[in-house]
Structure formats: structure tokens, C-alpha cells
């Protein structure tokens, strides 16, 4: 069976988290900035949704809205089918506990004056998950074991500065697990780690997904990492606040259709000297990313797009439409010509 056939088919159950036409507009001196512009996304229980894009594409703003940390200017964020901003106080609290955030920088996200035990047990006691410090310590040991910090007893009395970056990020994940979340939002959670340990942290997260059925909104600028972690899930590619391509991860990586996704994948060097030197690459028409305050008209990628067509691309904003089964792209040229020929590196289904 080829990888493409393995992609999950559309489920009918209620998605865990839905973003429905969600926008975030920031008012600045330079005028309104549409950081996120009408995106639709959903994450099912135990599923991985990767959000990839360059800095400034709106990934983190989208994640903050999904976590309820920022209120969208327009659109609806729903958890288990309920709009989070019309929830009663208690329900909103339950939502907050069910969705946990793992930040990029484990040096900044852990309190340096607290021991690991204090960091992990604080939410346990505060939210009444366990009663008494003895039970809390036992639960902390259990959680640290889940994130492969063993023997856990040795880590409890330590301070963050005594741990390596990878160990700190594991503590941050253990803390996110204290309240039994249904969704973890991982915002560039492995990008500060050394290559050598990145894979083991990702493997640990993958195990949590499989064993605990936690859904993941996985944000990264690194498509290779999205590929590794989100292979059985879906990937959305963002550019300047909009989703430009969406589909099952293997299709996005191996058979991208949007010129921006193709450019991203082509641009990545491969850990293989012969391959990386012979990889075909199209030249972008411009190197500079347009400012969000002055977005180009029509498709916002048109000033850089190698497939730009005068009159077609600079008129109206392209809609995200299905261009292949399960895969959609927001590109006038692809919508007109179809998803195009199979790329040489694409596995033939």
C-alpha cells in the first residue's frame, strides 16, 4: 500500500477543535494588520494537525486563538462543538484545562525559582486533581515517567537550570499533561532543541498521542519535522495569514500543488550531498516577504510566485478549493489547470 492511500478519510465525529472563518486584526499606527485572515481548521481527537509556514504567516496567532488566549476579531472558535467565547465561566475553565500549550523556549517557560516538583504539582493541587502533597508527588513521578525522565525521583528536586534543553522541554510537556488535556498545542516545541535529541522528544510526543489519545495542533516552520510528526495527520500551510494549501501530510510533502508549498519544499536542503545538489529548484520572483500592513492585491504570493500570470493572479484573492482528492489549494493557476503532472519524487499511488 502506498503512503498516499493511507491518508485518513474524512471522519463524521465531532471535531475536538474547530476554527471557523477565524480572523485576527491588530490595529497599528501603520493601519490594520490582518495577522490571520478567515481560516478554517479542525482537529479530531487523537489527530495531529500541523500548521506550517514562515515567520509572520500567522501560525502562532492562530494557535493563540485556538487556545483561547486571544479572542478572534471575527469567526468562531469551537471546542467539542461549543463556541468557547459564549461558554459559561465553568465551561470555559474546563476548556482551558483541556487545551494545553507547550511553548518554544523551555528556558523561558519554566519558572527558574521552582523545582521540577513544584512546577508539576502546582496545577495538580490548584485544580484538585490530587489531594495532599504526597499524592501530588506520586502523580508527578508518574507524569515524569511518561515523558521519559527516569528515574523520576532524581528529577523532582532539581531546578530548570540543572537540566538540558531537551529535559526542560520534557518537563514542560509533563506539566501540560497534569490536567489530562484532550488537545496539546505545541508551538515550535522542538525547534530550539539539538538535532540529536529532537527526534526523541518527537517520538515521546507521538507516544502520548497514541497512548493517551491526545490531539495535537503542531506548529512548526520545519516541514521535515511536520512530516515526521504529522505523517498520519493533516497539514495546513499558511502564508501571510491565510491557508494556502491543506491536505493529508504525505500529500502535502510529496505532492504539493501550491507554488508556495512547492517552493518551501524545494528550498529545504537534504541530508544527502548528491540529492541536495541535484534537487530541482524554481527561482522565486522576489526574495522579500510583503508587509502584512500592505498586502499585495489578489493572491498575496503573486509578487514572488514563479507561476504568476498577469491579470489572473493579481485580481481577486483565490479561494481554498479541492484540487485533488482530500487536498485543497488556494491558487488560481492550480484551480484552472488542475493539480498538474505528478512530480518525479511523488510516490505513484
Amino acid at each position, binding site marked *: 500500500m502506498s503512503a498516499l492511500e493511507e491518508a485518513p478519510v474524512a471522519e463524521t465525529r465531532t471535531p475536538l477543535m474547530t476554527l471557523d472563518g477565524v480572523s485576527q486584526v491588530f490595529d497599528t499606527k501603520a493601519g490594520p494588520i490582518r495577522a490571520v485572515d478567515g481560516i478554517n481548521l479542525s482537529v479530531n481527537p487523537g489527530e495531529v494537525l500541523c500548521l506550517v509556514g514562515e515567520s509572520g504567516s500567522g501560525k502562532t496567532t492562530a494557535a493563540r486563538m485556538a487556545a483561547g488566549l486571544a479572542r478572534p476579531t471575527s469567526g468562531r472558535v469551537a471546542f467539542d462543538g461549543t463556541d468557547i467565547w459564549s461558554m459559561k465561566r465553568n465551561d470555559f475553565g474546563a476548556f482551558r484545562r483541556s487545551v494545553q500549550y507547550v511553548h518554544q523556549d523551555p528556558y523561558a517557560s519554566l519558572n527558574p525559582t521552582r523545582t521540577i516538583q513544584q512546577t508539576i504539582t502546582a496545577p495538580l493541587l490548584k485544580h484538585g486533581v490530587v489531594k495532599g502533597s504526597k499524592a501530588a508527588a506520586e502523580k508527578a513521578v508518574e507524569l515524569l515517567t511518561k515523558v521519559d525522565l527516569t528515574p523520576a525521583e532524581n528529577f523532582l528536586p532539581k531546578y530548570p537550570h540543572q537540566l538540558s534543553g531537551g529535559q526542560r522541554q520534557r518537563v514542560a510537556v509533563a506539566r501540560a499533561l497534569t490536567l489530562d488535556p484532550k488537545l496539546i498545542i505545541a508551538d515550535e516545541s522542538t525547534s530550539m532543541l539539538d538535532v540529536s535529541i529532537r*527526534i526523541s522528544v518527537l517520538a515521546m510526543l507521538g507516544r502520548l498521542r497514541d497512548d493517551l489519545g491526545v490531539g495535537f495542533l503542531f506548529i512548526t516552520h520545519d516541514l521535515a519535522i511536520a512530516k515526521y510528526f504529522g505523517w498520519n495527520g493533516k497539514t495546513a500551510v499558511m502564508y501571510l495569514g491565510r491557508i494556502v494549501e491543506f491536505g493529508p501530510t504525505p500529500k502535502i510533502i510529496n505532492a504539493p500543488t501550491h507554488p508556495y508549498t512547492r517552493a518551501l519544499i524545494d528550498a529545504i536542503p537534504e541530508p544527502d550531498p548528491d540529492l*541536495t545538489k541535484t534537487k530541482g529548484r524554481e527561482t522565486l520572483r522576489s526574495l522579500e516577504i510583503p508587509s502584512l500592513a500592505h498586502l499585495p492585491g489578489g493572491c498575496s504570493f503573486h509578487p514572488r510566485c514563479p507561476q504568476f500570470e498577469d491579470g489572473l493572479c493579481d485580481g481577486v484573492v483565490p479561494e481554498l478549493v479541492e484540487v485533488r482528492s482530500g487536498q485543497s489549494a488556494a491558487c488560481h493557476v492550480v484551480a484552472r489547470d488542475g493539480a498538474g503532472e505528478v512530480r518525479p519524487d511523488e510516490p505513484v499511488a
Partner: protein
Amino acid sequence: MRGGQGKPLLSVRDFKVEYRTGAGATVQAVRGVDLDLYPGESLALVGESGCGKTTFGLGLLRLLPRLGHASGKVMFNRGDGTEIDVLGLDGRDLRHFRWRDAAMVFQGAMNAFNPVLKIRAHMHDTMRAHTKATRQEIEERAGELLRLVRLEPERVMDCYPHELSGGMRQRVLIAMSLLLDPEVLILDEPTTALDILTQRSIVDVLHEVRERLGFSMIFISHDLSLAAELADRVATMYAGRLVETGGVRDLFYRPRHPYTLGLIKAVPPIVGDLPDLESIPGGPPSLAALPKGCTFSPRCKFVTDECKEAEPPLIPITDEEGSAHDVACIHSKDVHLDRSVPNEKLGTAS
């Protein structure tokens, strides 16, 4: 077999860097490195953070902070046949060596600029400090180099550093480092913290500029894919020493040190199906408390009791495939990369 031709441009022998850490204590961050850089060659120095890569680069240019002390021998071979003992330079000679003979492009381009000076002032200051060039000559030289790194001089010269994007700043820095036509360029993580498309433009610029100007470069990176793309030769550094050096194809297709093998197996490729990836357990050792014998042995899956007796030297090896490179491992014969060919259909992916 060492990649280059003729005499090495830069010849490093038993190079050590010590940092004073207070109360008479010292930590050795670079512990005896031997390395040759040949004219026109591109050498990648790879390894995890904390392996001494940046310290090595700074030490070569005598840019260490005050508490750092470099020893050993660094010989620079000027085109006219004169040999310079870099560690013995001072005053004018040292200033001549820096920028004119060897220049460095730092990581985090923002910190390398003076935030209150325009790019034009940076260019003029640099040129005037090292040459007697006229205003006109400086403008021409700066414009020429900026165009070479695909920037418009008219637009960039009157900007302050904060007005430029990260990728533009990095390209300005590359242009600036080339102002005095150095023979050697040392780049410390030149594309880290940049977006993918910006990173690609820097890589393309480096390819182009090197082809045009023909300098040698040492670039320091934790990104193996970047090394695969930009290097002719690769040196793997671990705990302050080189553990493997060789041609880029030898090293990537036939790594013989368990550490290099581990690094390669930890990088997910983008093309093709999902290969098995592995991480290296644990982290680099503290330089203040190195393990006995081979410093990699606590993390190594090939480890035997013998490994803990003495630190293996970097020695040349040749195998039946005709691959020749230098490895510091007593089990190098057992180390093999079993790599599935990218693009090959693996059937199921899980």
C-alpha cells in the same frame, strides 16, 4: 585524499582553547584540533551545541573573550609565500590578518551591527580602518558586493540595521565580510534563525559568491543538511575534539564514527517516505567533567570496556569501498550507515 590541492591555506595543529572559570580553574573548550584548509575549499564543522565549534572559530581569528586563551599552532599561508603564525600576531599585523586575510560572519546578524549607524557607515568604517581607499572607491566596492549578494545598494546603504529583514541583514554581513577580499571566510551558523526561503537565498548567494571570488570557507553549523549542500569536506566535532573528518560524500554515505552516524540518522529528510530515525541518547558531556577514555562512550551503542581506557586519536582509515577519511574510534570498522535510498518506495509508512 584530503580534498584540496597544493599547500594548505590554513594549517591548524594541536589547537586548544581554555576558558578561565574563576578561582584558578579552567575549562578546555577545544582540546587539540588538527585541521588543514586548502585554497578554494569549503569545510563544514558540525556537531551539537556545546561541542566547541564556535569557540574554535573565534579562536582561529583571535576573537576570544578575555577569559579565553588559545594555544597550539595556526599557520596562515599568504598567497605570496609568506607564512604567518596567527597566534603570535599583535597590533597592526593582527588587524591586517583579520578582515584582509580572514573574516568572520557571525550568527545573529543584528548583534554584529552598530544599531545607530547606517549600512553605509559600516562599510566606510571597515574599509577606512584597513585601507587607504577613497570615498568613491569604497562606494563602488560596497555597491559591487551588495549587488553580488542580490541587494540594491541604493536601497540598503542608507538603511539602519533594524530597517532590514533578517535575511537582508545576513546578506549585508556577508557582503561586508568580503570588502577586503579575504582568503578565508568563517561563517558561524549563517542561516540559523532564518526562514526556509530566506535560508535558501543565503545558501544560493554563498554558492554564487564563492564561485565568483574563490575564497575558502569554514562554516559552523548544527544543520547537517546544510553541510551536505555547502561543504566539500566535513569535520565532526565532539566535546572539543574532531572525531571524524572526510570528504562530504564519504562522510554522509559512509560515516565511520558512531557520533557522525548518530547525527545523520537523527535528521529527517524531506523527500520521499518516512525513514527510521534515531536520536542519540543523552547530551554532550560537561567540559569540566569529561568521561574517561572516549568522550562519546557514555552515549555510544558500540561501546566496549576498551573504549573507556584511552581517548582514541584521529587516524586515517581506508575501507574496501576506497573511502578514505580520518576517524577517532576504535570500533570504526563496525560502524555502517544503513540508509534507505530516498525516493524509493518503502511500502507502508508508519
